[in-house]
């Protein structure tokens, strides 16, 4: 089996799952990448047709994403508060004023670091748990697999806000079921323990919620990928004396690598952009220690009414994420080539 064969084989499951969990942008960008490549490959006559077919989609993208992005960029270079919003004053350009103010603000950097650590933790946990569940799915009997799949899809299907509210109850200080449960353990008294008294501990709880919501997609995608790992390779490795870990490390992982890279980049993008989980969990007003880039940007724009500053933060976030997006795009293009 040639390298090209394996990579095609493991790619096919990767592509369909990408859209469901993804936002508009991921789908749009992914789609464009693939189609762009295909067009180049087939080249030749009727170059206008693909564009004509793409036009409606591109137009929607332009309206839904292009226009807001353009406004975001303009806003971030303006002094824009309530009087400007209400039309009593013309917005005035402040050049890079918003950016220098933000970048020179220690609080902004601590938010950036917090966001990165939070996202990194969530991504690693999601990927490890997702992989473990995917491996487990391969080894259990049919009906157990069905049950696990149902559970996965159910948690995937739960609206974020509902899930967040339920986690909030679970972790409630005075009436939370978790404190009650832990207190049942001999020698443990967790009654009245406040999970959200401090940022690190509270964000860990929120991270669990994020991971809980993200694992199903990863697990299902990976288990689909796992079905494409050639049995004979595993067998050969085993004959050569590889243990379970060896097989996983030297056969399974390399075969799954493209899917893993894609899932990881997508997860990074999602987890950097976590908003409702933090926002709702902290009752709409995350404390300073709970602010991540998205809530911080929202706070600046809509709560403190510094729309210019909020936009600048959002733009910096986008720039930070561009690096990750580039990795994702590269992977998508590569998959396109392999086809």
């Amino acid at each position, binding site marked *: 089996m040639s390298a090209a064969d394996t990579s095609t084989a493991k790619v096919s499951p990767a592509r369909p799952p990408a859209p469901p969990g993804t936002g508009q942008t991921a789908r749009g960008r992914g789609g464009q990448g693939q189609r762009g490549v295909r067009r180049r490959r087939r080249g030749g006559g009727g170059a206008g047709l693909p564009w004509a077919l793409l036009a409606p989609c591109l137009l929607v993208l332009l309206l839904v994403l292009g226009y807001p992005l353009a406004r975001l960029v303009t806003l971030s270079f303006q002094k824009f508060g309530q009087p400007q919003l209400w039309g009593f004053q013309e917005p005035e350009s402040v050049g890079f004023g918003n950016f220098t103010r933000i970048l020179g603000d220690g609080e902004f950097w601590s938010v950036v670091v917090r966001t990165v650590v939070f996202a990194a933790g969530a991504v690693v946990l999601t990927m490890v748990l997702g992989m473990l569940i995917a491996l487990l799915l391969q080894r259990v009997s049919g009906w157990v697999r069905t049950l696990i799949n149902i559970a996965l899809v159910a948690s995937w299907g739960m609206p974020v806000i509902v899930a967040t509210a339920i986690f909030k109850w679970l972790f409630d200080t005075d009436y939370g079921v978790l404190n009650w449960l832990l207190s049942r353990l001999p020698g443990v008294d967790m009654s*009245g323990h406040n999970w959200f008294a401090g940022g690190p501990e509270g964000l860990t709880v929120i991270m669990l919620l994020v991971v809980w919501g993200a694992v199903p997609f990863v697990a299902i995608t990976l288990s689909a990928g796992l079905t494409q790992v050639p049995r004979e390779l595993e067998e050969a490795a085993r004959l050569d004396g590889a243990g379970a870990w060896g097989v996983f490390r030297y056969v399974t992982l390399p075969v799954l690598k493209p899917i893993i890279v894609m899932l990881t980049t997508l997860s990074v993008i*999602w987890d950097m952009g976590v908003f409702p989980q933090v926002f709702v969990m902290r009752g709409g007003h995350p404390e300073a220690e709970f602010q991540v880039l998205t809530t911080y940007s929202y706070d600046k724009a809509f709560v403190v009414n510094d729309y210019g500053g909020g936009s600048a933060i959002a733009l910096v976030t986008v720039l930070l994420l561009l690096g990750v997006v580039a990795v994702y795009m590269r992977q998508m293009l590569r998959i396109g080539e392999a086809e």
Partner: protein
Amino acid sequence: MKRKLIAAIGVAGMVVGIAACGSEGGKGGDKAGADVKELTVWLTVDAQNNWPELVKAADDAVVRKHPGLTIKHEFYGWPDKNAKLDAVLATDKAPDVVEMGNTEMLGYVVNGAFAEIDPKQFEQSDAWLDGLKESVSYGGKTYGVPYYAGGRVGNWRKDVAAEAGVKAPPKTYAELTAALDRIQAEKGPKFSAWYQPSPDWYAAMSFVYDAGGAIAEQEGDRWKAGLSSPESLKGLNEYKKVLDTYMKADKTKDESDRYIVYGQGNAGMIFGAAWEGATAEDPKNDKTGKLKGNLENFVMPGPSGGNLPVFLGGSDLAIPVKSDAQAVAVEWINAFTGAQGQKGLVAKGNLPNNKADLAPLKSDPKTAVPAIAAESSWFVPMAPGWGQVEKAQILKTMLQEIGTGKKSVEEAAKAADEAIDKVINTK
């Protein structure tokens, strides 16, 4: 799981959605609005839940004078109210009457959101309560009409007090703490003798003002934060002592669900708005059934000897500059907040917006407690940047840090002062 690629883009979209309308404002049209067909009134859910009949009465009175007029109502919750208002003011479909918390008025007035009004057009405007009158005035002009006021009172459970051998409500702070100590000892460490949510700055600042401190003070035309002054620190330390000694529940929760927690039966006393006790003993909230008939309001005594100065909360009604039915809006406000309306509001346990109606309340046993408590009151600094102080939750953050013990009182107060000084003088 519907997740966005980058929530930031979503946020950007929202900024844009609102901003895009920004340039269209100010069309106004016929400001006098003699021939308007529609009046839009935005009130908070309090009116919807507690006194819808007063709203109806005001509607009827105005419609009688303007046959064919439709009055549309929207009721909004306090937490997301201002974001919603900001957005609608960016369009030319601004509501004609909006309710504002009295501490929120100034920020909007400073930015030119509300139309100036002539107080003479409104009944009893010469007797408006000082705290409320202050909240609608800026630079010698008036931009709103006081709607109602709300004092804060102590409320405790007579049955719990009796269990601990306390018969009468406290008259002095020493009596109060002695009683709470006995209740705390009697009910054990999982019971809050005084359920006092840490971030509740209305309660905490009462201790600060009682000790002679202030959130901020005016020096010339500049405001300067004053939470680190020795007086303020004394008040904050006393507040911290209350939290440490009597507050055994979640120290990060704010006061918005206090009456619900009170109804769950694990608290002996609260210090809050006068209606909270009554709402807690509503069978909907009274989970143990022990509150009904056992609650008692009392005027909060303060550590310095007198009554604890309470925050004079309340609401104002304002007319957005962009309203195209300002004349009718004035009529509606008058019908709603005039003598008749005040009677209805007082019957619901609120304080009236004027002194004339307040006076008789003090001698009526049913209303005496909140009316007397309101005599000793404090109000937020009328500084141009006060709205930002409130929006940035500077006081809440400080109090939560004090409550959870994350920072010492001095450190937390110093950090809060710095944060306040940064924004309090900017519009």
